[in-house]
């Protein structure tokens, strides 16, 4: 099945790495990228997004706040917080709102696990 994934991260390198892994694993998927929450919200509007991979620490709205918006607007999507901020407090907040948590660094295995769930 062809799916659409939205990668939200202010780091170009992170977006490149995730995109490369998703392209290799699922060459037919649509891959969208956003640098921050505002861009992501615009991009996701009126679209079916199957997977969101969201960084936590970004300029403007953080990834958890953005995830809450997508939980409401994209109920059947899978949302993963992919972050360098591996404090227990952030993990707990992600769990509390019902989204996945994955720690950076980005590896082939981690991204494949996210998109195969």
């Amino acid at each position: 099945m062809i799916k659409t994934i939205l990668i939200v991260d202010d780091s170009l390198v992170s977006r490149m790495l995730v995109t490369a892994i998703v392209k290799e694993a699922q060459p037919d998927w649509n891959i969208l990228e956003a640098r921050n929450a505002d861009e992501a919200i615009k991009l996701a509007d009126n679209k079916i997004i199957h997977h969101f991979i969201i960084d936590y620490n970004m300029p403007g709205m953080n990834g958890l706040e953005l995830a809450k918006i997508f939980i409401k607007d994209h109920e059947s999507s899978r949302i993963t917080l992919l972050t360098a901020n591996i404090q227990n407090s952030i993990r707990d907040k992600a769990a509390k709102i019902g989204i996945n948590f994955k720690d950076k660094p980005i590896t082939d295995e981690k991204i494949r696990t996210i998109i195969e769930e």
Partner: protein
Amino acid sequence: MENFSPLQNDLLTEAFNLGMGLAASALSQMVGEEIKLSVPKLLLIKRQQAAKILINKNITTVTGVKQHFDGPFNGDALLLFPVENSLALVKLLLKNTVPDDDLTELEEEALCEIGNIILNAGLASIANMFGQDIHSGLPNFIQGSSENIMHADNQDSLVFFMHVDFCIAAANINGYIIYMLDAQSIQDLGTILNKYLKKMSLSK
């Protein structure tokens, strides 16, 4: 170190050690090579002396990432490389997916991402061990002399300086991870350490 007791110093060294282990593990995953770490050093020194630590290693111009953090204590975290090492590190990170000619364009972005992961690993370890919530700012690319980076113009102000040297032997890359806390934060950290020691029934 004057301001911390031997037990506090030991506890902080252990927390820092754990953090640096996490940081090394993360860096190793990113570049696919073993990372060797030095023994961490924790020092209460003047900013001017902090700059000299780098200068004494023959590192006069550095490039890297700076990330401010605040919460229960405030300070700056830095990941620094001698300027000639940074592109080699970026190349390792991007694993030959980007042509050499394009590497310089991505250098700042790539270093910021590496710095973000490594510096947060150290902070997270301390935050988790002591049950604190530390807010880290966005990583900023920096380049300049060791004196400028360490604000040695404010040379008499005291900083609590935690650092570890690391080496990616296979690629001949050396780097430095540094956390600097200002004088007020040293006291705040001391309070947190005492609470932890009391909780673990280790304080006298």
